[in-house]
């Protein structure tokens, strides 16, 4: 029995040690370094005009991308689980593609389509629309990288609840919209919420894809993660830490939301 408990404790120590060295100590260190110059300095550093404009651009991109992807996610999950069509396996795999593609490749792809020498470059220039090095490009990049989350959360729930209730509603004469609103939507709402939280986190934190298409114009096309990098490269460590801490706080709020939603989901 003694060997058993020794083994248990050493496994626990190894797991917690790995987590501490890789995750907890570094994150704790960032908060420590952030607060070192005092709370006043931190607040001043995250309320400069550049920081405020970066935060609002980040939130704007997320506010556009997340609802669009939520609608897409519900449609995609419905098609995937309830639909019957050829090429379903391909469709299924393609939904996951944004998870597997490097953010840099995403940025390059948008550049090749919407950039000056891209597919639609001339047409966009003729109509005075700027996508690359401008807000629409940032939004497109954000939409791309946060695309699969809602679909991936909703699909398993749809599969689990089955289609019997929906069929019953349809037999009783409900229109497909009524069936969706009264039967399907209430049962997938927690999955949708969970997916929305995940995609919001990803949308707010996206760096690589956005950094290719943004042009990094301070006060205009600079998102909060880009500001972190710029401050770091300019040796403004305190400023970089403060902006990082702001993002980390958003991440922790996301985590809290995930934990709460998870317990909610398992209960119902």
């Amino acid at each position, binding site marked *: 029995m003694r060997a058993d408990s020794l083994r248990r404790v050493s496994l626990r120590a190894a797991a917690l040690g790995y987590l501490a060295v*890789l995750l907890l100590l570094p994150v704790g260190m960032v908060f420590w370094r952030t607060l070192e110059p005092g709370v006043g300095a931190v607040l001043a550093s995250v309320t400069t005009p550049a920081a405020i404009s970066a935060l609002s651009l980040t939130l704007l991109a997320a506010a556009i991308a997340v609802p669009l992807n939520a609608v897409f996610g*519900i449609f995609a999950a419905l098609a995937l689980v309830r639909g019957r069509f050829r090429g379903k396996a391909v469709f299924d795999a393609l939904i996951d593609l944004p998870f597997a593609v*490097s*953010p840099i490749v995403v940025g390059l792809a948008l550049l090749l389509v919407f950039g000056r020498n891209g597919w639609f470059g001339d047409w966009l220039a003729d109509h005075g629309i700027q996508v690359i090095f401008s807000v629409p490009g940032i939004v497109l990049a954000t939409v791309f990288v946060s*695309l699969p989350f809602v679909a991936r959360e909703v699909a398993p729930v749809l599969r689990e609840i089955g289609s019997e209730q929906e069929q019953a509603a349809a037999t009783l004469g409900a229109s497909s919209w009524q069936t969706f609103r009264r039967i399907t939507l209430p049962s997938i709402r927690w999955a949708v919420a969970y997916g929305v939280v995940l995609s919001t986190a990803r949308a707010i934190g996206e760096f*690589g894809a956005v950094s290719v298409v943004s042009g990094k114009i301070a006060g205009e096309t600079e998102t909060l993660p880009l500001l972190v990098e710029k401050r*770091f490269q300019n040796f403004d460590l305190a400023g970089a830490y403060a902006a990082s801490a702001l993002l980390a706080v958003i991440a922790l709020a996301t985590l809290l939301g995930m934990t709460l939603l998870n317990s909610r989901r398992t209960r119902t």
Partner: protein
Amino acid sequence: MSVAVPQPRVRTRPVSNRTGLLPLGVATLWLSLIVLLPLAAVVLRSTEGGAEAFITSVTGAQAVSALRFTLLISLLVAGVNAAAGTLIAWVLVRDSFRGKSLVHAVIDLPFALPTIVAGITLLALYGPASPVGVNVSFTQIAVLMALLFVTLPFVVRSVQPVLLELDEQMEEAAASLGASAPTIFRRIILPNLVPAILSGSALAFSRAVGEFGAVILLSGNIPFETQVASVYVFKQVESDNLGGAAAVSTVLLLLSLIVLLGIRGLERLGSRHEG
């Protein structure tokens, strides 16, 4: 046991025939516009100069070195995750200690934390201003740590549910027959976990191959040493060599596709075991 009872053949018309087309249409349109069209542009751009130009781009010394380093370090990341992730999942499921629910919540932190913050975070502790006197910045170790940070949850989250559902009776039976704990783990538990470990590691691998934000600050981007493929592509874009960037990107895309299809195969394998 199985007595064949002739089933009355009732053809039920799926409801989906009424509702299925609109969702499919909208979803396909969105997917094509946002994802497929841009990615097609990358592949087409990489072949624009003919096969020769493509091959020249991806066999340049710096490109080859970046791709090789990315591939090797991602394999290492997948391997470390297979072990560490399984260990953490094991401790979370089978062990009990104070603060376990906190650890549980913290596992997902790398998914929630922006990647650039992950890089800053590691630099704060293991960078030039390290309070513990460890400075790994601009080394391959730094790249490894950054990738391990961002891929931490994959294996834990894929192994955990399987471990939770594992029937402990098998282990009890083995123990009563005199098997030691390591033997039980190796012969009974591990075989059941293998599909989950593999698919979690494959996800970690594919994430590591493409990772950019966490690496950019830590790696120092030293060609032939710490330059990963995504940073190489970024540098090509910055110096306006879009053809070269597209060629290496196409290689990365192919790699992600292979891994994605591999994971599908593993999942199918896993569900066959269940059924």
